[in-house]
């Protein structure tokens, strides 16, 4: 160091000493750590719920800001109800309902018209429900609504579009091995639920090859009726006119055979899975990757479980909140082991939920990362979270609560989902009230009851000969085969 730079360093130090709150130099607003603000007040708009004569439930919430209308549908169906030898049927049915035309127009004509009108129309069937959305300029609503209703009510399943959807699905299976995180996700689900369980199984080239157009027609017939459908309408409209338009589009649709949730086949309990074990199990899927995909977890609570709230906050503290969670701060920032690391609680509805931790780390730090993650999971059971952590998790939730009511589509979408799952319409407000009351002791009790690091399923997808230590220290190892598409 030259004399001059010594002097400069001394001067810099002195400047800082003379101004202990350096914030005074940068901003006249004071220290952001001590700033306080009024609580954010939310006025939740009243949403109207109407049941049409044929049983169709409609939620209406006008929002006149922009000349757009959005109609979303939720249908009581799902891949969990498809036959075990035809896994993939629900997904294909949803796809071809959208592309395969109706009695009034071919699939290509429908696409041509919708795209010319710059309308967005999507349709699909997921694991536990069906969903469809029409988003269209107000001026084109009559035409869009007619197409939308026609697709939901009377899809034609054009044979060429059926074949196209099957070809695409087969190619997607062929490409599964190219995406390591996709491999990890599917294999982990299979380990948690079992390969035969409706929530664990996956489509294969065999199961797809057995699916015919007739199967899709029958699947649609069975699940799509006015009394299995909910509509949510938001955007630029007057309620009476909208109800009239919906009656025109859907009113003469006769409820065929009422399907109530109770009439659907029950989801079987999870029996044949690694998650049922009384001890930890380690599963290695060998892939020539320079990075290991780690998944750690077990089955967890349903959404209506009284402990869901506390478990959700534990998840935020452990790895759910980015940047500030324990896993992020330790495994990523402090140890530099991972770019992607965190935890996730996905509460169940039809079946059990999932609690999981995940990370991607280079082969030679796999054991270290895994060990740290398990320790963090265990620590939640051993000692209460700190007051600061609980306060941050609460504040983060409560102060961002307003974002759950940021737009009409969100508000209506949530009401439909709660209705669908039989949860109270003020579920989120009750959830918030319980967050406010949570204590460190609540979290500790719930962690001890619902987190089980001693019997988690561990999955590592990667190059196990590069791991710095064998994973057998965590439990007995099973090497999994990767059988794409079969």
């Amino acid at each position, binding site marked *: 160091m030259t004399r001059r730079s010594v002097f400069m360093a001394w001067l810099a130090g002195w400047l*800082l000493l003379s101004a202990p709150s350096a914030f005074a130099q940068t901003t006249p607003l004071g220290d952001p750590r001590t700033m306080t603000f009024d609580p954010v007040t939310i006025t939740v708009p009243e949403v109207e719920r109407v049941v049409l004569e044929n049983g169709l439930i409609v939620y209406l919430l006008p929002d006149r800001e922009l000349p757009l209308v959005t109609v979303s549908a939720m249908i009581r169906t799902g891949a969990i109800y498809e036959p075990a030898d035809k896994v993939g049927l629900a997904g294909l049915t949803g796809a071809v309902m959208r592309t395969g035309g109706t009695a009034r127009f071919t699939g290509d004509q429908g696409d041509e018209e919708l795209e010319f009108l710059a309308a967005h129309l999507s349709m699909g069937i997921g694991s536990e429900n069906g969903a469809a959305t029409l988003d269209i300029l107000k001026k084109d609503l009559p035409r869009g609504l007619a197409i939308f209703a026609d697709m939901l009510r009377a899809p034609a399943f054009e044979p060429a579009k059926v074949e196209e959807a099957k*070809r695409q699905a087969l*190619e*997607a299976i062929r490409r599964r091995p190219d995406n390591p995180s996709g491999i990890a996700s599917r294999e982990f689900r299979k380990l948690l639920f079992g390969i035969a369980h409706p929530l664990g199984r996956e489509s294969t080239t065999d199961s797809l090859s057995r699916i015919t157009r007739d199967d899709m027609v029958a699947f649609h017939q069975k699940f799509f009726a006015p009394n299995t459908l909910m509509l949510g309408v938001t955007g630029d409209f007057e309620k009476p006119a909208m109800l009239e338009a919906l009656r025109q589009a859907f009113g003469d649709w006769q409820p065929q055979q009422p399907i109530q949730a109770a009439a659907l086949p029950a989801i079987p309990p999870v029996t044949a899975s690694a998650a049922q074990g009384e001890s930890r199990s380690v599963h290695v899927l060998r892939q020539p990757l320079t*990075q290991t995909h780690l998944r750690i977890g077990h089955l967890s609570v349903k959404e209506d479980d009284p402990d869901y709230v506390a478990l959700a906050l534990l998840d935020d503290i452990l790895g759910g909140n980015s940047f500030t969670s324990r896993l992020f701060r330790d495994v990523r*920032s402090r140890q530099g082991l*991972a770019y992607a690391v965190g935890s996730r609680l996905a509460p169940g509805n039809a079946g059990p939920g999932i609690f999981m931790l995940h990370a991607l780390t280079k082969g030679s730090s796999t054991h270290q990362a895994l060990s740290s993650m398990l320790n963090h999971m265990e620590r939640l059971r051993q000692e209460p979270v700190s007051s600061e952590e609980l306060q941050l998790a609460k504040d983060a939730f*409560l102060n961002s609560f*307003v974002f759950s009511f*940021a737009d009409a589509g969100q508000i209506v979408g949530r009401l439909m989902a709660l209705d669908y799952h039989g949860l109270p319409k003020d579920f989120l407000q009750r959830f918030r009230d319980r967050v406010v009351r949570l204590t460190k002791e609540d979290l500790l009790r719930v962690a001890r009851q619902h987190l089980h690091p001693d019997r988690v399923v561990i999955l590592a997808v990667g190059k196990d000969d590069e791991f710095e230590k064998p994973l057998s220290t965590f439990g007995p190892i099973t090497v999994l085969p990767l059988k794409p598409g079969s």
Partner: protein
Amino acid sequence: MNRTPRQRDLCFVLGLLLFSTPVAAATSNATAPGLEERVVEYRLANGLVLLLMERHQAPIVAVNLTYRVGGVHEHNGITGVAHLYEHMAFKGSRTIGVTDARKEQPFLEKLDRLAEAMAVEKAKGPASDQTRLAALRKQFTDVEAQAAGFVVPAELATLYQRHGGVGLNATTGKVLTRYFLSFPANRLPLWAAVESDRMAHAVLREFYKEKQVVLEERRMRTDNSPSGRLHEAFTAAAFQAHPYGLPVIGWSSDLEGLSKAQTEAFFQTHYGPANAVLAIVGDITPKDVIALVEQTFGRLQARPPSPPVLTTEPPQAGERRVEVEYDAEPHLLIGFHKPGAGHPDDAVFDVIESLLSDGRTSRLHKRLVQEQQRAASVSAFSNYPGAQYPNLFVIGATPRAPHSTTEIEQSLHEELARLKNEPVAPREMEKILNQIDAGLVRSLRSNSGMASRLAYFQAISGNWRETVTLRDRIAKVSPEDIRRVAAQYFTKSNRIVATLVRPDKPGLNGKP
């Protein structure tokens, strides 16, 4: 600071707005009413451009702080520095993220000296002294642990989250680096204090750990991703001179070698307030926000303009073909050199992109996926890998087994030839405009989407109004323009083709 120039700036801007209104009303579609009138533009004395839009649907606000800096400002040896800096900007400042910055500093300096000594020793290659290296590494680990003692982990993010901030993140691209989040609107003072502080006084703590984090990010995005590998090789082949050819994430060896001094110098060069655009959309009162931003960001020192990218890509003479061996299903990329933003032909390429790949009725989807059934997916991008500077028009496709990339290439060339030979039907043009107009209306739905859009156009073209005027330029594109542009640019000698193929000997990087 003198108040007069700012006032004048504000008047000047308002004047511009008033002047531009009738023009916009005459040419833009009426379905996006008042978009231009709703934006307030304000320029601070230090050069920072502020764009504001009121949306009072909910008591929330979205901010997007966009810097005109990215991968193009790097060169071999420091690739990845723009992105690494973006990560470091979350580590805090001299006041945030640290218990005592003054005490922390000597440890950070000591770490830098040790890192430098290790780099010098390593550079000796086989002659490097392993014992010395091991000793240095040991010392480094010890000092790193001591420095970590001063860290208040994630304090910046904690402040934002505690006050209801959501979607806190940042992205680094070829030409722009963008910082964004949303939060309850009454917390704007907190955000302004924290954000202006980190943009002025960032301290690169946990620097060496964060390099490891970025290396993991590279492994995820590129090394273990078939498409990531293909895109990296494709872009490198297309740009031999222009820094567009360098990977934004950085070459692994550059990331390992990057010094803190280089990273700080990069910040000093490119993070001047005049190089930034700040867009704020939501439940705000523009007058109050302007005062707040003046109080905070207004205190940032003006810096000399950052140096322009001087290198231009020489004309390509002859087709370039690249193969990437990776044990995965095939994938194809075809690119053609073209001019960038600001050139009259740019809007023509936007139209061609829509014609070829927007939606199920687009030409490429209809032909390759539906009719010929050769492709699983196909798409086109008109501004690859960035909008500024001469760039590429790119078509990407994945063949459907048993079809090959050769067959796909054949089909693509036929479709491109159609553009040269057949005039585009008026209805196809009309469809594209309908989609752009509806897209503009939809863009007003989200605070964060609109903030991003305004900041993007301001940063790329120096004019946020491009978000609307681009539509008018596209409306003027004629079928003849499309024929001319297709004939001029879609030629063999101007083309780069990259394919992903399985290695001859699977197992090298192949699946077991």
